[in-house]
């Protein structure tokens, strides 16, 4: 039995690197410090859904094949295609992504990563407006006001609040955990009293209000760290917060601009914005200006709702305005564990962070045209390689419809919806468990991914599979050139 300390968790963009794993007979038997998703991955990755043998579609059915045959078929599909898509990349190592870019250039395809359906709009806005940001360590030690907007870290980044923000014990700011426990206890007592009163006198529940419109509580003026959540629905994260603002769906832009106006001392001549009374907003704007170090984390609630990149423009501009008064930073809540790495490696090698088209022989970037969903909606691609991603489960149906008509290659450790539609399936080792590498945390800090156990016999890493495909594609192209 061995215990491996300081393992980096390959699940979400928080990339917690304090995981302790107990290994027994080549299997992970215990996970310490991880969240529910982390435990699920480390303990359940080798489930019955694991792909162990390469598969090739023959007579409409996926059947087992040798690795050599599967790689040969993959190379053939890619070498013959005029406009192949190479998509995924956010759940693999930077080293594999680097080889993927080389392959995309070799076959003249469109290479895109999952940020196109998560923080793509954020990247576009950052390129226009710029981003005042910092590392999560700075936030942990200094931030006294934390705002999550359109983001539910409790579900998507479960340890984010505990490790980096409100509940972390910083050098200059203390954890707000005890205050939260007191609040929960008080709220439970209040609920019990209210329900007793209802049972005794009112006989039934009071009519529920249309929206949650709670005034900013007096505790918002307390000393120490404060947590505000702004979202269209009350999430688990909203319950933890000192103050929750419920914004009407698709009206985040209005609310962001209202905050900007208030921070610039402008009058707002309406009573409420996006369903929130202006007097409440004034109090929060005041809090933002008066904090010593504020941070705004934003999630897909902003990038996927009406306005998309313009919501992010407004959020970035709000933080810029706030920096006229105090120190304020902003950061997107990146989802996959290495989506930031995908953007970084794409930018090193092509100059652009996602949606890169190599069909002209040089990298071209124009999201809306060279982004994978648009290529699919226009039905232009004629082959696809999907790695470490499941677009059939994550793209709108009309986009996935064209994808499954293409000759489809899937490189993944698990059977998923996309692999079920594939023509070639190449099983791979889990990066961060069975293969090492590098990944970038959401604040652009690179961290090593450890290999803690061996992959099943015959299963290669993404990096090795891509290296072999690339070599085979080059060999085929050379052969054709010689024949011509």
């Amino acid at each position, binding site marked *: 039995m061995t215990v491996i300390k300081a393992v980096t968790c390959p699940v979400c963009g928080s990339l917690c690197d304090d995981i302790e794993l107990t290994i027994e007979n080549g299997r992970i038997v215990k996970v310490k410090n991880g969240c529910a998703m982390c435990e699920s991955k480390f303990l359940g990755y080798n489930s019955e859904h694991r792909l162990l043998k390469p598969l090739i579609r023959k007579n409409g059915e996926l059947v087992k094949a040798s690795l050599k045959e599967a790689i040969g078929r993959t190379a053939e599909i890619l070498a013959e295609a005029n406009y192949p898509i190479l998509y995924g990349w956010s759940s693999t190592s930077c080293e594999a992504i680097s080889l993927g870019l080389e392959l995309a250039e070799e076959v003249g395809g469109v290479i895109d990563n999952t940020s196109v359906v998560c923080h793509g709009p954020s990247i576009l806005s950052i390129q226009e407006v710029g981003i005042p940001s910092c590392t999560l360590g700075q936030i942990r030690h200094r931030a006294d006001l934390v705002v999550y907007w359109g983001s539910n870290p409790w579900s998507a980044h479960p340890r984010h609040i505990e490790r980096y923000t409100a509940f972390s014990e910083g050098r200059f700011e203390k954890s707000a955990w005890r205050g939260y426990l007191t609040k929960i206890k008080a709220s439970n007592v209040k609920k019990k009293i209210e329900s007793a009163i209802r049972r005794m006198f009112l006989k039934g529940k009071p009519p*529920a209000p249309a929206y949650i419109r709670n005034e900013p509580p007096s505790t918002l003026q307390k000393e120490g760290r404060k947590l505000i959540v702004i979202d269209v629905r009350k999430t688990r994260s909203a319950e933890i917060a000192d103050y929750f603002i419920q914004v009407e769906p698709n009206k985040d832009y209005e609310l962001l601009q209202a905050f900007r106006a208030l921070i610039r001392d402008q009058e707002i001549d309406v009573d409420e914005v996006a369903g929130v009374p202006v007097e409440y907003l004034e109090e929060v704007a005041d809090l933002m200006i008066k904090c010593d170090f504020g941070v705004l984390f934003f999630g897909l609630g902003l990038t996927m709702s009406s306005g998309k990149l313009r919501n992010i423009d407004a959020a970035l501009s709000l933080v810029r305005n706030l920096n006229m008064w105090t120190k304020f930073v902003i950061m997107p809540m990146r989802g996959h564990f290495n989506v930031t790495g995908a953007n970084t490696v794409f930018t090193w090698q092509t100059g652009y962070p996602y949606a890169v088209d190599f069909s002209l022989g040089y990298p071209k970037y124009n999201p809306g045209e060279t982004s994978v969903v648009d290529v699919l909606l226009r039905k232009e691609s004629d082959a696809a390689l999907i790695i470490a991603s499941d677009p059939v489960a*994550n793209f709108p149906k009309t986009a996935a419809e064209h994808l499954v008509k293409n000759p489809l290659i899937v490189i993944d450790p698990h059977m998923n919806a996309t692999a079920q539609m594939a023509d070639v399936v190449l099983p791979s080792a889990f990066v961060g468990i069975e293969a090492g590498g590098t990944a970038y945390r959401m604040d652009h800090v690179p961290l090593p991914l450890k290999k803690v156990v061996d992959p099943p016999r015959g299963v290669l890493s993404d990096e090795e599979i891509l290296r072999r495909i690339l070599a085979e594609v080059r060999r085929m192209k050379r052969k054709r050139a010689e024949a011509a």
Partner: protein
Amino acid sequence: MEKPRLRVTLLTGRTIEQGVGKERGKASKEYVESVSVCYIDPEDLKRLGVKEKTNVMVSTDYGSVVVKALKSLRAPHPSIIFIPYGPWANVIVNPETHGIGMPSFKGIPAEVEPTPDKPILSLEELLMEQFGKGAK
């Protein structure tokens, strides 16, 4: 009597159950059960005249899908329904990318109606229905 239909706004997003399920395996029971559901405000469930765990059909301009109605734990959010990201939500989300590559996954006008007699398809059945293709 005509069945009640409710006009709502559809949101899609993450839940911790979906997060745990996807790490376990995208073909796992945990994953499939975590993404073939729809969280509805308790008052809206009353308006639809259904109890929790009844099958409902959610329709948008882009398609219809049958999912299991669950009572939202953090109401009120009248006329807002929530389906976790996954193959079921994808049938009905808006593919429009507004020229920037990003489809519209949140804030989509939708309608909900009770369909207690219609089954929730398995992942294989759903893929076969939507794309006419499968592993076998």
